[in-house]
């Protein structure tokens, strides 16, 4: 147990990195306490992957500095590598090899002798439910299995810090749940996890603290609760029967509830943010009141739902611009938040 370090897992100050004209990181500061899940939330192109690659010693920053457990990621890269592991966005195991071969190879590279490496591989395969697939080439694995073998490969060396770069992107809900369970188990045993994600609910469920990144900078940082209350804890989606009643509905919601209202491209739809800082009612009560007000004003509501604020809404609240660079990312995030 003595290997585990309390204190800070990551301290990064003013990290910058450009690729040609693109400034992927524009002065990123990050302080990650050891022993918990730290979420890095942002849309595609926000700089999440670049940040992870710098912290995992794969990329050098143009400016700024970063330390992992007190070791500089550039000048003491080897000391950092001894304590971290990375599961990238793309399969970081060899697809031509079988699951077992991949793990034995990594075991040998971490200094285990033949039989010990094989034993370790077997343990990992069993713990990740891959014993049956051990002899199959990884390219024949399903998305969920592939992600599992990836994570198994990453914890082979019981890292003190595990980077998970969008571990659930593209996974079905069941596989996503499995990954979440794995992350919880990993953290329960003292490993710090830095998790990047596009999904607010994922960060919310797993992370103790979250940094929201946009254009290569941290634009908000805090516990999920703090972040959400800065945004409002929920979103009411409304569809009216008559588009002509929308201006009236908008006015009512703004004046009675005193919440931000957004008109959707669909002429009968609008959304309102509820449960924010300024209100003494919780999201549910506010939503109920909104529905009551509308109904008593004679506005016919065809569809009404209360959901989590989406990543887009977090961005709107924090930056006054939506997370536009990636339409698909936003759509996915909306879907995940519903």
């Amino acid at each position, binding site marked *: 147990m003595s290997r585990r370090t309390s204190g800070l897992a990551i301290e990064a100050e003013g990290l910058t990195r450009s690729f040609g004209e693109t400034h992927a990181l524009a002065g990123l500061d990050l302080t990650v306490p050891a022993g918990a899940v730290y979420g890095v939330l942002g849309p595609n192109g926000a700089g999440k992957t670049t940040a992870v690659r710098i912290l995992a010693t794969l990329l*050098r920053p143009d400016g700024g500095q970063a330390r992992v457990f007190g070791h500089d990621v550039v000048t003491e890269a080897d000391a950092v590598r001894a304590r971290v592991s990375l599961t*990238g966005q793309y399969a970081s195991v060899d697809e031509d090899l079988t699951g077992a071969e991949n793990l034995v190879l*990594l075991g040998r*590279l971490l200094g*285990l002798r033949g039989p010990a490496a094989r034993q370790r591989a077997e343990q990992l395969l069993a*713990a*990740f*439910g891959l014993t049956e697939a051990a002899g199959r080439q990884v390219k024949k694995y399903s998305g969920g299995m592939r992600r599992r073998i990836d994570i198994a490969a990453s914890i082979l060396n019981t890292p003190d810090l595990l980077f998970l770069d969008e571990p659930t992107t593209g996974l079905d809900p069941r596989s996503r749940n*499995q990954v979440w369970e794995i992350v919880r188990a*990993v953290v329960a045993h003292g490993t710090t996890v830095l998790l990047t994600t596009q999904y607010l609910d994922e960060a919310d469920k797993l992370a103790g603290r979250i940094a929201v990144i946009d254009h290569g900078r941290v634009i908000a940082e805090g516990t999920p609760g703090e972040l959400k209350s800065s945004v409002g804890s929920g979103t009411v989606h409304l569809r009216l029967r008559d588009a002509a009643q929308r201006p009236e509905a908008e006015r009512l919601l703004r004046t009675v509830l005193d919440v931000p209202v957004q008109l959707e491209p669909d002429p009968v739809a609008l959304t309102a943010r509820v449960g924010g800082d300024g209100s003494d009612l919780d999201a549910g009560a506010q939503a109920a009141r909104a529905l009551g007000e509308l109904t008593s004003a004679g506005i016919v509501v065809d569809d009404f739902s209360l959901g989590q604020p989406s990543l887009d809404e977090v961005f709107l609240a924090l930056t006054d611009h939506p997370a536009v660079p990636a339409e698909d990312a936003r759509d996915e995030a909306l879907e995940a938040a519903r």
Partner: protein
Amino acid sequence: MSSDTATSTGRAPTVYVPSAEALGTILAPGERPRRPSPLAASLAFSWRALLKIKHVPEQLFDVTAFPIIMVLMFTYLFGGALADSPREYLQFFLPGIMVTSVVMITMYTGVGLNTDIEKGVFDRFRTLPVWRPAALVGMIVGDVLRYVLAATVILTVGLVLGFRPDGGLLGVLAGIGLLVVFSFAFSWVWTFFGLILRSEKSVMGVSMMVLFPLTFLSNVFVDPSTMPGWLQAFVQANPITHLVSSVRAAMAGTTDSTALIWTFLWSAMFIVVFGTLTMYRYNRR
């Protein structure tokens, strides 16, 4: 080939439920093994190369069929014109075509590395606390096996067609040994290009542009004394010419010291210059 999305097995799939206990056992911090030596790490990576050959045996096509075609094609194409008979030409030509074929195969080192990087598996290797060049050394050691295989195939075809080396078994082994040493060194040129170029195709393109003139403008096919002076100058400076001379001499049971020295000098130069450039790029991406 199978698609990437195959999920279904014959039986009803059992749903995996992560168990905190099983994961806990895995994560229990034990004694951390000692970091492997550079040799052990390189060997682990060359084991990977062997596994890849085992799983994708089609990739041996270029070290078996391609060399056979090269030998047959040129022996009968040039044999009658350049010597009295294909059989006589073969005595001169076989060491040269062996060098040509094997040196051409070295380009797959670069192509393979480029593909690996594209797929992301090198990201994992580069975050491991092992001797940095190990991944590349191991990869090239795996390729060396392919070079030996190609050389053996060519030698066999040659012997069948009537190649009778005066140097005997030892001479032939010495010749193949020289060729393998040079090819190992030359592979570092391609690891460098594999790292700096964006796609597999561009690596292929650059390799061809370098390899064709290098192998054809040499003493592989004909005696350079028949060439114009400016071309002779190039041929004499060409590392392939020196390699071919020394392999030819070895297989004939003699020694061409000048060619031998040049061969080793060129090999050392490739490792020092391109090995360094490769590692610089590898570390700095």
